[in-house]
């Protein structure tokens, strides 16, 4: 009687597989060689900083000392962040900023794409004009909007006062209640062309014969949109929204230039707060822990993004 241990059995089962994998790798050695430089660069500029950020997040880095004088404190930085009132306020801002910007940009972009999908005179010109906000430098756009919103001499305020609709210019960005919505408007203005382009590309893939068949069957415009067009755009919609969400979570330029996170932290979002903690206040450890949290959030979004893409591929493969 032969007694086979669990380990030996596992090894036995593994061997052919391992050999197979190695053989496959060897067969594709040229492919690996092609991607090797890119992987090496990624390891240097992405993997190492991520590792270092995670490591630093477990250390106390007193602002009065050099970074090399850091001391290990375990999860204290995470506790500090999660028990901080400011963190929750900033998190709330981040959620409003991200969800508000993403959702409205998408809806506006989609609506514009649907409108531009029809054939009419001047469509090309209009499409080019609508893309302008997306191609303008975010820095330049932020400064322009800062003056448009200016609480004393902004264009909007001047028009409203000039038309007699307001006694004094509205306070857009120097007020804790209005600053975040005002910045979201700027962000939407910049982002919706991206959603528009994505959805316009998606609309090209909707089979025309299906729409015609639905029309012949007596489907209304809404029914054709809801039952034919929209299902075809589901995947591109998910991808667009995820890309927008990731971009918005990482959005730094508009809030930083226009308000610096103020007034009174009312427009701080995670990324601007992390920047201030790290570079303004030199709390490298806390800022690193914060960055790890942001990284995990973005990885989660990234996971769904990849899943959405794989779903697309599977669907296309099976079609």
């Amino acid at each position, binding site marked *: 009687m032969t007694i086979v241990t669990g380990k030996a059995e596992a090894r036995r089962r593994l061997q052919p597989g391992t050999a197979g994998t190695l053989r496959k790798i060897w067969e594709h050695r040229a492919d690996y060689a092609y991607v090797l430089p890119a992987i090496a660069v990624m390891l240097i500029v992405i993997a190492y900083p991520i590792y270092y950020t995670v490591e630093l997040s477990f250390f106390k880095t007193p602002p009065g000392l050099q970074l090399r004088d850091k001391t290990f404190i375990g999860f204290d930085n995470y506790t500090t962040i999660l028990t901080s009132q400011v963190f929750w306020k900033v998190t709330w801002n981040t959620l409003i900023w991200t969800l508000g910007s993403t959702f409205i940009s998408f809806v506006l972009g989609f609506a514009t794409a649907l409108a531009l999908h029809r054939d009419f005179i001047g469509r090309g010109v209009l499409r080019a004009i609508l893309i302008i906000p997306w191609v303008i430098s975010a820095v330049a756009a932020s400064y322009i909007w800062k003056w448009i919103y200016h609480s004393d001499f902004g264009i909007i305020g001047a028009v409203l006062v000039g038309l007699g609709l307001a006694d004094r210019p509205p306070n857009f960005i120097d007020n804790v209640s209005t600053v975040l919505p005002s910045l979201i408007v700027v962000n939407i203005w910049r982002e919706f062309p991206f959603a528009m382009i994505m959805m316009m590309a998606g609309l090209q893939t909707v089979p025309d014969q299906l729409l015609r068949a639905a029309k012949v069957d007596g489907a209304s415009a809404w029914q054709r949109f809801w039952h034919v067009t929209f299902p075809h755009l589901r995947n591109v919609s998910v991808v667009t929204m995820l890309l927008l969400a990731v971009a918005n979570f990482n959005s730094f330029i508009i809030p930083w230039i226009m308000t610096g996170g103020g*007034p009174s932290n009312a427009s701080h979002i995670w990324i601007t707060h992390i920047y201030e903690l790290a*570079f303004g206040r030199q709390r490298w450890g806390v800022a690193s822990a914060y960055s790890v949290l942001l990284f995990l959030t973005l990885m989660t979004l990234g996971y769904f993004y990849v899943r959405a893409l794989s779903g697309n591929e599977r669907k296309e493969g099976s079609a």
Partner: protein
Amino acid sequence: MSILAIETSKDRFALAQGGMGEPGRIPMTRITLGSAVLRGTVVTALMASLMPTSALAAPPVDLSKWSPEYVRSIAGTQDFDTAADCAKVTPLDYKGRLTFWYQGVFEGDPDLLRQYYKDFFETFRKTYPNIQLEEQALTYNDLLDKFRTALLGNAAPMAVRLQILGGTEFASKGYLAPLKPEDVGYSTEDFWPGAMKAVTWEGVTYGIPTNNETMAFIWNADIFKRAGLDPDKAPATWEDVVKYSKQIHDKLGIAGYGLVARKNAGNTPYRFMPQLWAYGGGVFDEATANPTYEQVQLDSPQSKAALQASYDMYVRDKSVPVSALTNQQADNQPLFVAGQLGMMISHPSDYNVMLDLQKKATGTDKDKAQTVIDNMRYGLIPTGPDGKRAVVFGGSNIHILKPEYVEGGKVDEPAAKAIICMWTSPEWSLKMAYAGSNPGNLNGFKTKWMKERLDNIKFLDVTTSMLPYGIPFPALPQAPEIMNIIIPDMLQNALTGAMTVDEAADDAAKKVKDVMGGL
């Protein structure tokens, strides 16, 4: 001497009276100083208290006589040969390479300054043709962030010119190499004693001041007149500022006082700290002769009173720009020249900035700007309720880095000393501060360019007159965070209603204690 740099009603510096019975305003070139003896006593005591023992030796100018007349009398009395002086430090044919970052000109600076910066680097390259200079200009608000980041990666430049606030932070962390004026051919006595304090950490000198300045108060006489105020009289106290601001706003519908409360902007502490100190408050005891920085005073009744004054103007009276929370001084300048702002704390360079803005204006705006410039008046910064007057002692310093923090691990010391010798020379420390500051090297006041400057730059007398009232920021490594983040946060919390004045001051005091490690 306990009051250091703060005037009290009893020993008020005679300059404030201008000898013309107009408290707070100094008419150009006609200042008759009152009691020279009293002034001399106050200034001598002031300077002595700021001065390290060694500096009591022989300063190149007599600080006890400091007055607009004295400054005028010494201007143009001595010639200096910069190249010859610096050749003694680093031979002119020296071959080397230097990386150098500096706080350069930015959008709020006058064009004149831009030209002098350009001239400096051209002259340096001509004087030291074999030194390969790689310079990089950064704005005030960006320099600290970028420099800190570079230090973390051991990628700093060999030499750096930092704002006065930064010297202590980097010296205390051990990034800077010891460097004193004697190392580049000058003596410690050649520089403002208060400025030398800002480059000294635990008894060792780590840099050399390039320029030093104090601000003054400017107002638009035409706006004052139309608002029913005396056009030739500056507000004597901060309470007057609050009152005048309201009166201007109520009568004319424009902003009275140019409040600035943006976070991460150097303009904010430079404008709020004089108010805080005048009311008798402070972050610590930095306004005293021998500060110990042991007790946080941001939550004191005096500090709260200063904050309350800002609150009254912004919230209660709505008499200052609503945009103050996101604005900096560069945003107030166009408002002032457009005749939409009555008064503000002003940099010495603001007169030239206004001239530049006027030149760039077109059509009727040009005439409007000219009217504002014609009506521009400079005076001393107002006092607090007890007659205290104070202003931030500002400026910049130049430093050499330790090799281990520099890209490549090497510092070309002779090359670094060459540029430092030139920049801190009487000639260039004056020229580089021509329109916006004062020479860090006191000998700069004796040059012919100072004489020319006195004739060309209007109101220079007034801004130099504020120098004796200057209080340096706390010489602590935590000072940048306190000044650029905690102080503006306190203002924003109070002005937005996120906190009451009391809560905002208490919150700021707690933050300072935390930053200081639980004071």
